[in-house]
């Protein structure tokens, strides 16, 4: 592999919460082939079609005020190393795709003012800032399902510019009837379990809860994000360029950076057909020897948080020596690089992690370790 980019950062700490628990528990459950997704009413207490959803244990999708995901965030926050977060040299970057839109919808329906404290991006981040004791140096970012990658990249640039000693990236996305109903209306959250990268007649995603954090520094050694890449096609509100050019533009520089190394790939792989095909084919072309996995067939798509949630699971996988396979995916696949089963990862020297989003937004990073 090539030397690290000027924006390379060390991951000092990283953790997540999914429907299967913290990162280590999630990794172990995925390796065992556990599927967190279950068929549940798309509108939560209001019913509707049953679709694959993976909320945190104990969550009902009811829109409560305060939100019922707060205990999970509190538990995750205990894993963040103590520090003067939110001060001048310790900035916080908070990312989400949906923030508190479920509470906004609940306010529109109920007119209960208690929902407003969690109903908009800045309101819910301010609520979390105060709850978690952060200072005012908090940046709020959102770019659909690559939101977490954007947070990681901006934090890395701030560190590279010498503007911070440590940076905390925090991300969250929790399912609500509003969000699930939206994907259902788009006909991509259907009454079928997702099967990422499978060449089948009809696709479906699942949706899952996710929250994660990473503490980054410019220190040497350890686990490092050696290269990061983002690209936006600016092609269409929702669709990718049909020839896959956007995927190639984002990933080609990383293929060059990773040349000579032995990688495995944690892809985006939501279970939709067209994007899954473009992604799998592009990755197989650029990284023909790298096994490709997606964990969204079990955890569901955790939307804007997925990039960092899955980074935390990838770190747990490296530490455990075993990478979970693509739980829920079945042959035939769009590429012959898809790894359906878990595998030992001791012989690999890096991981490529990719995410994609509505509107042809692409993001990827190279995780390397000593």
């Amino acid at each position, binding site marked *: 592999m090539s030397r690290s980019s000027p924006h390379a950062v060390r991951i000092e700490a990283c953790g997540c919460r999914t429907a299967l628990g913290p990162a280590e528990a999630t990794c172990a459950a995925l390796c065992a082939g556990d599927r967190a997704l279950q068929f549940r009413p798309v509108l939560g207490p209001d019913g509707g079609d049953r679709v694959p959803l993976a909320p945190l244990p104990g969550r009902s999708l009811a829109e409560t005020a305060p939100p019922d995901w707060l205990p999970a965030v509190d538990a995750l926050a205990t894993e963040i190393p103590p520090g003067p977060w939110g001060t001048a040299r310790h900035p916080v970057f908070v990312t989400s795709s949906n923030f508190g839109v479920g509470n906004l919808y609940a306010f529109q329906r109920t007119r209960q003012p208690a929902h407003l404290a969690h109903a908009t991006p800045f309101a819910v981040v301010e609520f979390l800032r105060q709850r978690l004791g952060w200072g005012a140096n908090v940046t709020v970012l959102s770019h659909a399902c690559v939101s977490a990658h954007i947070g990681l990249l901006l934090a890395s640039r701030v560190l590279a510019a010498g503007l911070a000693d440590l940076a905390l990236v925090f991300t969250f996305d929790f399912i609500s009837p509003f969000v699930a109903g939206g994907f259902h*209306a*788009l*006909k*991509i959250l*259907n*009454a*079928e379990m997702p099967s990422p990268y499978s060449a089948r*007649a*009809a*696709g*479906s995603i699942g949706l899952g809860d996710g929250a994660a954090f990473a503490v980054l520094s410019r220190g040497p050694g350890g686990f490092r994000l050696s290269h990061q890449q983002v690209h936006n096609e600016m092609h*269409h*509100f*929702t*669709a990718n360029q049909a020839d896959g050019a956007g995927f190639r533009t984002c990933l080609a520089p990383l293929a060059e950076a990773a040349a000579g190394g032995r990688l495995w790939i944690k892809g985006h792989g939501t279970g*939709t*057909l067209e994007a899954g095909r473009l992604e799998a084919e592009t990755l197989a072309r650029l990284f023909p020897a790298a096994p490709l996995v997606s964990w969204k067939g079990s955890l569901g798509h955790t939307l804007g948080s997925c990039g960092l949630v899955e980074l935390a699971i990838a770190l747990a996988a490296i530490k455990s020596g075993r990478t979970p396979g693509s739980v829920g995916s079945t042959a035939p696949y769009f590429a012959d690089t898809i790894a359906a089963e878990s595998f030992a990862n001791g012989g690999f020297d890096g991981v490529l992690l990719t995410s994609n989003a509505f509107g042809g937004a692409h993001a990827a990073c190279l995780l390397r370790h000593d």
Partner: protein
Amino acid sequence: MPDPLFLQLKQLIVDTLKLEDTPAADIPDDEPLIGGGLNLDSIDALELVVRLEKEYGIKITNSEEARAALASVARLAAFIRDRAPKDKLPA
């Protein structure tokens, strides 16, 4: 004599998507609705699907089925005839 369901669907497309410069009668029977001469995209498709489900009491279960149904006015008419209750169809 023109198929009354074809005419109804063309008018529904014009009304739903507010195609003010497109007379319903000018929409061809067999040309692609999405990505064709009407220049419709996936957001238009979403609006159409929601309206069609409401208007004809049908259920479109996934995006692949939606894409197939919206292949043309003729394909859409066949899809609706196959799925919709008879009382929702023009006489």
